[in-house]
């Protein structure tokens, strides 16, 4: 049974050390992705004062944009890029550490 578990790939039951590290960063990135994106739309919905959703966030302005428009059209694409950069930097570090531990050069 133990032997079987060695090669059981399951997103929720990581086994090898590298996969545990990888998984924690994946979950963190996905959380940042979902909360900022879907969370903000839900927030808009909670703060809506009119049927078309106008509220405090569409009255506030930033760089002369209504805040909600700026956040979705300008900041979120940038945020996605930031998330990807964080993910890659982290994974670069993890993979270097693991390849040192196993005395194996990474690709």
């Amino acid at each position: 049974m133990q032997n079987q578990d060695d090669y059981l790939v399951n997103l929720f039951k990581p086994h090898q050390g590298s996969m545990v590290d990888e998984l924690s960063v994946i979950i963190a990135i996905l959380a940042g992705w979902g909360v900022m994106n879907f969370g903000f739309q839900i927030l808009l919905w909670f703060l809506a004062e009119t049927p078309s959703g106008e509220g405090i966030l569409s009255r506030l302005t930033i760089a002369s944009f209504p805040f909600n428009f700026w956040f979705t059209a300008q900041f979120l694409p940038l945020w996605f890029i930031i998330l990807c950069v964080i993910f890659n930097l982290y994974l670069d570090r993890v993979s270097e550490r693991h390849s040192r531990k196993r005395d194996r050069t990474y690709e």
Partner: protein
Amino acid sequence: MNDGTTTIWPIIIVGGVLISFIVIGMMQKAREGSDYLFAGRYIGRIGGGAAIASNWMSAASFLGMAGLLYLNGYFALAYVIGWTGGYVLLLVLMAGQIRRFGKYTAPDFVGARYDSPLARLISAVISIVISLIYCIAQFKGIGMLFAWLFGMDYQRGVLLGGTAVVSYVVVAGMLGVARNQQMQYFVTIVSFIVPLMFLAHNLGYFWPLPQIGYGVAIQDLSREFSVNFAAPFASGTLFQWTALCFTLMVGTAGLPHVLSRFYIVPNVRDARWSVVWGLFFIALIYWSAPAYAVFARLMELRSGMVLPPEAARKMADIIVLKAAVMGGVPIWMVGILAAGAACAAFFTVTGLLLTGAASLSHDIYYRILNPRASENRKMVIAKGATLVLAALVMVCALRPPGLIAEITATAFALAGNTIFPVFLLGIWWGRTNRQGAISGMLTGMVITFAEPLFGRFVPQIATIFPITSSALCGAPIVIAVMIVVSLLTPPPSEEMRKFLAREVHGHLG
């Protein structure tokens, strides 16, 4: 379509740019000799990113997105977010693993992972259908563009533009033109942003960075005409927004021609970084597209010539060009803009038709129908398939079912409901087997087309699975089906599970 602005210059510029791509492609090919292969040369992370972005940029990004923003304001930002946020999913959940798995087309991956010709066949059919739907949207863009260029009606535009693009594909294929994707990206992005700077300058907004300058235009819209471009739920509910956005995201992560981009860079690390560069290059165009839409709205209201909704919907897909003309951008500059749009559409069609035909010939004809076919015979089938697929697309494009971005979104919904779950579970859950994959893909196909199939009889289906945004509810159902069916049937072979654990997840790169 003709509004008296038709001059010869845009036609000359569009033709000239397309011909020069063929000439340059041939010169490159002559220089590099016959060993030009996709994997045959190192292009680096930034180059790989430009290739991803160039592969991605189609008429939907160039024309369709601004059109939807012009019609729907904030609601259409779901497209901006969906088409950028999908890359986060792709990078985090799949890019490295697919690169290590070593199979880069959807049928190859499905065939190898699930060890099943039937699953392979289904995924090949799905990939071809996705390419076809995607192409219909491109042909609509090309049709509108040609109708505008030559001052003719839309149907003639589709016939003329369709013939032009098919000739382009045939000529490029016959001459063996090399695809220089970095240069394609550069031409497309410059021809999108420079006219926008002209436009912002003419209207008196901050022009060196029109992507930031159009904020004032949004405020002018609401001050002068009390049009709130930024009202979040003016054109759709929270559910509709979220469903659309989520569908485009999982669709991006499952789109076959995006997945297959990871083989052009030499290792996993570079594959990951080229995704980031690609996302940045794509974001450049998506930061700019809303500006065209806002400027168009403003100029239209100022001139007092507001179109009725029906007419506005009809010309929305070409609003980028209309805005440039309305804003007094020099006609040669409008020609460059049109050339950029033509390039985006032409290159996308070329890529999709050729891979679709290759898949038809290799995955369906060779693998299933006639395994003893010679290379020559496969080639003949592929060439014939290109023309058949193109004809099919042209017929569908004559009566387009929606706006460019909406048609494209349907292709994304199909990818998100079928290919995405099959890749996701295939990589992350070793227990997924062929029965699970097959039943999942079939369920996904039914869900994608549930609205046109059953929407009339059961109105709830049209609400829960709208054709452009079915994956928010669809993808989780497909994943559930795959898990249940996999658990009820025997597990996949031990070698495959070992391979997944040791090679795909074993070490990081």
